[in-house]
């Protein structure tokens, strides 16, 4: 925050100071404000705690249980490609355990960034841009046009979940509804990409891990820019999607941790260990949406549909 009042008051010829006691960066918590006020001599004591904060394990946010973006990032992680990212829920792929997003600059920058990285040629395994549907319509179209015009060998994945999820579920030009909820002209993303000159535009089912992986591989081999559209809707908006949950057969779980690495909040570690002292997995039936992605990568096939859905009285 800039010293707006201070500068304005000074400009009026009145002597004043203030900003030197408070940071320009970050949120002004009561604690930070009290430190500034104490330094300025207004109060005697900083409003703090007698208790030292505990040094605890982190609990970073990850993609929601059942989020359709997960399948795409699992595939990109498998391929080990460079991923330029954009602004949306999917930016969470930058955090562990997925950790498969290399850049996030501003809305639409994923495509421009991918064009640049590909031109530099520093990424042997290729470059993929990951951008959401609403971000693509907001400021990704010009980037894609540039990729066509400048003959970039990049693959652009439009993570089309039919909603502006990160900011609370607003409509956008490809949902068919205005922000007021009235029906309106719906942009066809595939036709739009083709009109920009992209020759290969394909759809992928992000809940099909292997299928998505194959489509990404094929499109990355293709010369020139290509677009992959995923079309599974957001699990929260506009409608909450909850299917029968999955569960872990404890005796079959070998503690390989493959399911831990897909970063699903429904998958936790059990306090039960394998013979080799590795924690087994458990699935929270209240959070699991039944997307099946963890079951698809579980080698010992320990992750199965629950026999009886949890009965809510």
């Amino acid at each position, binding site marked *: 925050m800039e010293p707006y009042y201070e500068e304005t008051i000074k400009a009026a010829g009145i002597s004043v100071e203030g900003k030197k006691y408070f940071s320009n960066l970050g949120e002004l918590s*009561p*604690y930070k404000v009290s430190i500034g006020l104490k330094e300025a001599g207004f109060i005697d004591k900083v409003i703090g705690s007698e208790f030292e904060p505990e040094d605890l394990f982190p609990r970073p946010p990850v993609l929601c249980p059942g989020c359709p973006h997960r399948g795409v990032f699992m595939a990109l992680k498998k391929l080990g490609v460079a991923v330029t990212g954009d602004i949306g829920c999917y930016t969470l792929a930058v955090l562990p355990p997925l950790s498969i997003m290399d850049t996030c600059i501003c809305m639409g920058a994923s495509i421009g960034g991918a064009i640049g990285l590909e031109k530099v040629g520093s990424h042997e395994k290729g470059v993929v841009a990951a951008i959401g549907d609403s971000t693509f319509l907001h400021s990704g179209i010009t980037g894609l046009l540039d990729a066509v015009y400048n003959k970039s060998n990049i693959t652009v994945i439009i993570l089309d979940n039919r909603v502006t999820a990160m900011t609370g579920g607003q409509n956008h030009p490809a949902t068919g509804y205005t922000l007021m909820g009235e029906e309106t002209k719906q942009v066809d993303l595939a036709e739009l990409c083709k009109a920009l000159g992209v020759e290969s535009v394909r759809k992928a089912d992000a809940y099909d891990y292997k299928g998505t992986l194959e489509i990404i591989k094929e499109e990355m081999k293709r010369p020139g820019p290509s677009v992959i559209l995923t079309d599974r809707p957001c699990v929260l908006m506009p409608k909450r999607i909850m299917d029968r949950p999955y569960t872990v057969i404890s005796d079959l779980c070998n503690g390989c941790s493959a399911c831990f690495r897909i970063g699903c*909040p429904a998958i936790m570690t059990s306090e039960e260990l394998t013979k080799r002292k590795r924690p087994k997995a458990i699935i929270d039936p209240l959070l699991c949406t039944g997307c099946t992605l963890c079951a698809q990568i579980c080698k010992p096939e320990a992750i199965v549909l629950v026999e009886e859905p949890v009965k809510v009285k």
Partner: protein
Amino acid sequence: MDNKVTNVLIVGVGGQGVLLASEVLSETAIQAGLDVKKSEVHGMSQRGGVVTSHVKFGQKVYSPIIPYGQADVLISFEQAEALRAIDWVKKGGLIATSTTRLIPPIATSGKIKYPDDPISDLKKKFGDVIAIDADAIAIELGNPRLVNILLLGVISERLNLGTETWQKAIKMRVKAKFVDLNLKAFAKGRELAEESVGTPL
């Protein structure tokens, strides 16, 4: 005029019902004729992160954020999350936590492991700790999602807002078909609190 503001911090992990709990508490204070301010982190609620909600009520509340060391009550839906929040709680404050342990993979593979016994760590610092196995009790009551209202029941006696006011707020804020079950969970929480030793705030 005595303007005593009560600060309640509610913490948990995404999906546990922290936000509904803070809505019900806020509604109760509003129905009791008090000024209420609340502030919470929304984005984490589905994403497995830490969720915190600050609720402040009194004759007049000026700011929505509880300063460090000023929470009269801490409600936690997960035992390690209660420990994470202790620098918010005032000396001698009340802590009501579920004994639930939600261990994310990062707390077994990362540098810092999940603590062995967060509840005893809490009890070393605070004299007024109520720990209940809220998950098990909620399932016994008929729905694992009742944890939040159950814990509100536990602390309700200490906040002096009136049982009927709480019940009214639950009816206003909980989905109609779940109201009866939630009232039952609230009553169960009050019953459990009677066994604890503290005095009203």
